[in-house]
């Protein structure tokens, strides 16, 4: 597939290209667009929540709609915005950072995206078919099992399908990082972002099956009459809480660790220093991932597990502050004495440190089980997790997007607009969530659709709402920046930031085979090693030769479409068994496509040496 061919095609061909692509860089685009879209929807839901809570006894939206709003805001932001945006970065960057031409399973990579997208669409279709899920993003039984209508059914099917996509993605990146590294790229030479993705993928692998089981049990209870969570028939509603949080707590580390990795790369690049305490950073990442699995019950201190269980989970939770503290200090030491450039990416990263640290401190406060009886289900908790998720994950996404945008699209996001977006967002963020800690301490419970007059909650809620509007303004400026940059900005070289890692050794955006010749890695920060020896680029590890690449395929789309159709069948067969026909149609499409994949050999294709030489002449691959 030559570049000339790529230029002479219409919109239809482009859509077909994206539907069938197995190229990790294009899949990154898909994840970015879909995740960004859901981020805006989730943000809109957040704005409606804040408008409702702007003043006491407000009736801007009804109580029922409010419940749907908070449920969908949480679910959308975690599963449909943060996760795919992280997957966008993983796809765009990891193969480049380890010197690979694609991920280990390009076909599965595409399948993972389409499953996520169709799952997300199912979830959001519920708005138009009689009501969205309304039992909170944690979907606790028995509230969820008795929730009328089909809202919670959409939650179950949507998350089941998109969760399968995430699990596939996790396995794919584990294998990619173990098997696809370029010669010389040992584990302890991997950039921190790749390390973080490695640990994150392991977390995905071991955490998501618990959610899968939880969702199956919920599905069986709601759609097929089982009684897992029905205490009248001997069931136990707490099982849902355990399964949900056995998944859910690792999930928050799944969200934050890749961004920890991105921050590490950004601090190092823009301080012109190698990362301080590289091995300690790797160790801390692994340790956080490990400890992340033994703290789930700190979400359930008030369930009544007893003082011993509560104490064990409290201590384990507090222990996580240690590796996290190691990271915070190492980032600061990386900047210390460095040649710092305050780019927009760096600005978001520097702002992240104090913001996230506040969230970490309130986390330790919440970990104190006895005190948690006071904080539980108040706005203190809401304040805490928004400090870590917005202050950590969202700041990290903005930083990482500014940093890797030129690698993905060949243009630097406008720096002035980037900083202009940062300030209202940063100020708005603290306005919105800092005051919520105090609202919580004053007794304001979370998930209530109104608060009363004369209880001292008016000012705090108004401030919080004003802050939310500032964050919305910041987001809009960022979007303007994306449009402005794609129209106005000039193409930049492959290495606009004076980078240190492999992704900056190839053109921006890279050719679809990434590396014309696989590079030879000779140390940590491999490109910097070459630069410090006066070389311009990487030393190749192989002679110029034919490159083997995977073939595009529409099957991942069809497999996911089948599950999408079957999802509706499952949801509505409760009302009328005739809907089972959709289950058979959908599963038929899915299993048929899988069978086709199994029967039809897919051996990939070769890009020939002559074509690579032509590309080289045109300036690619330098």
């Amino acid at each position, binding site marked *: 597939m030559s570049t000339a061919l790529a230029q002479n095609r219409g919109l239809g061909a482009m859509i077909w290209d994206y539907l069938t692509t197995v190229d990790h860089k294009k899949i990154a685009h898909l994840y970015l667009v879909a995740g960004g879209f859901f981020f805006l929807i989730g943000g809109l839901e957040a704005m409606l929540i804040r408008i409702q809570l702007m003043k006491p006894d407000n009736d801007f939206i009804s109580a029922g709609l409010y419940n749907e709003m908070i449920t969908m805001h949480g679910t959308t932001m975690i599963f449909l915005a943060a996760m795919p945006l992280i997957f966008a970065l993983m796809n765009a960057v990891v193969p480049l950072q380890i010197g690979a031409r694609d991920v*280990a*399973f390009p076909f599965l990579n595409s399948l993972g995206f389409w499953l996520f997208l169709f799952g997300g669409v199912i979830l959001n279709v519920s708005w138009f078919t009689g009501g969205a899920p309304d039992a909170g993003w944690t979907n606790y039984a028995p509230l969820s099992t008795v929730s009328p209508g089909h809202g919670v059914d959409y939650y179950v099917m949507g998350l089941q399908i998109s969760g399968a996509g995430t*699990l596939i993605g996790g*396995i*794919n990146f*584990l*294998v990619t990082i*173990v*098997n*696809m590294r370029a010669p010389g790229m040992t584990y302890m030479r991997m950039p921190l972002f790749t390390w973080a993705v490695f640990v994150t993928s392991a977390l995905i*692998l*071991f*955490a*998501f*099956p*618990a959610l*899968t*089981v*939880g969702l*199956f*049990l919920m599905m*069986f*209870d709601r759609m*097929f*009459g*089982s*009684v*897992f969570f*029905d205490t009248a*028939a*001997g*069931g*136990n509603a707490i*099982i849902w809480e*355990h*399964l949900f949080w*056995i998944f859910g707590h690792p999930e928050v580390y799944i969200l934050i660790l890749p961004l920890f990795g991105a921050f590490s790369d950004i601090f190092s690049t823009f301080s012109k220093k190698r990362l301080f305490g590289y091995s300690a950073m790797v160790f801390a990442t692994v340790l956080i991932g490990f400890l992340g699995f033994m703290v789930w019950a700190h979400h359930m201190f008030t369930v009544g597990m007893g003082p011993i269980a509560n104490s064990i989970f409290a201590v384990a939770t507090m222990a996580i502050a240690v590796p996290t503290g190691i990271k915070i200090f190492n980032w600061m030491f990386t900047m210390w004495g460095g040649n710092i450039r305050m780019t927009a990416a760096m600005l978001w990263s520097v702002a992240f440190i104090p913001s996230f640290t506040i969230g970490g401190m309130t986390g330790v406060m919440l970990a104190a089980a006895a005190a948690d009886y006071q904080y539980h289900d108040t706005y203190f908790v809401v304040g805490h997790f928004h400090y870590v998720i917005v202050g950590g994950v969202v700041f990290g996404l903005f930083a990482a997007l500014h940093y890797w945008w030129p690698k993905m699209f060949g243009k630097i996001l406008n720096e002035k607009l980037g900083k202009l977006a940062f300030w209202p967002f940063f100020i708005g963020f603290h306005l919105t969530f800092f005051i919520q800690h105090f609202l919580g301490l004053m007794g304001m419970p979370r998930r209530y659709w109104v608060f009363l007059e004369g209880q001292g909650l008016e000012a705090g809620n108004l401030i919080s709402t004003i802050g939310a509007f500032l964050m919305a303004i910041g987001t809009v400026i960022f979007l303007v920046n994306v449009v402005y940059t794609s129209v106005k900005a000039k193409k930049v070289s492959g290495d606009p930031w004076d980078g240190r890692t492999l992704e900056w050794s190839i053109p921006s955006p890279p050719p679809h085979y990434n590396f014309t010749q696989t590079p030879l890695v000779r140390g940590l920060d491999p490109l910097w090693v070459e630069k410090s020896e006066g070389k311009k680029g990487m030393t190749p590890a192989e002679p110029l030769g034919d490159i083997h690449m995977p073939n595009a395929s529409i099957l991942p789309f069809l497999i996911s479409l089948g599950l999408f159709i079957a999802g509706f069948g499952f949801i509505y067969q409760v009302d009328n068994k005739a809907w089972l026909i959709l289950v058979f149609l959908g599963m038929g499409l899915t299993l048929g496509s899988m*069978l086709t994949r*199994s*029967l039809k*050999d897919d*051996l*990939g294709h070769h890009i020939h040496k002559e074509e690579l030489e032509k590309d080289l002449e045109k300036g690619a691959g330098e």
Partner: protein
Amino acid sequence: MSHDDVLNPKQMPHDPEKATLEGKNKFLAFWFFLGGETVLFASLFGTYLALNRSTAGENTPENLFGLELVFIMTMLLLTSSLTSVYAMYHMKNHDFKKMQLWLGITVALGLAFLGFEIYEFVHYIHEYEFTFRSSAFGSAFYTLVGFHGGHVLFGLCWIVTLMIRNSKRGLNLYNAPKFYIASLYWHFIDVVWVFIFTVVYLMGKVG
């Protein structure tokens, strides 16, 4: 070099399932996948252990389970694991026909197991009126054992598909990893059954 030359070398390597990068990737990914499956079944076992005494005054494990049937099922499945080892042994010796033969025996044993399992479920439903909906124990039992049975069924379809697809062309470096991971999957199913036998049936009988 064309794909054909790469995938059908004159001298097959000793480990044909791991001779190509794709094979290595599949091998590793499948082990990871089985790690995830372990968590999946662990969650189901946890749920079962939490609910196996919640019989809502109806059928209990003691009065339902018959160890004779379960013993036969266990023997069938354990033997099928052994026969799939023989199949892989012949794959490594590049004897395609014998591999197919032993895979065929594996499938037959798996089918027999599945038949007994279906008989068991039907028996419980008709003789004891013990269903998915009768109690939390019922829900947990049918879900755990049913998930395992579903895995057996999927595994059987998978192995049969591979056997038919490749029956004419024999072993090469493209399909060797496919056979190998299907046999890994089969072993995993067997291991899960050992736990089901212990946790569900034996512990159910002795209380």
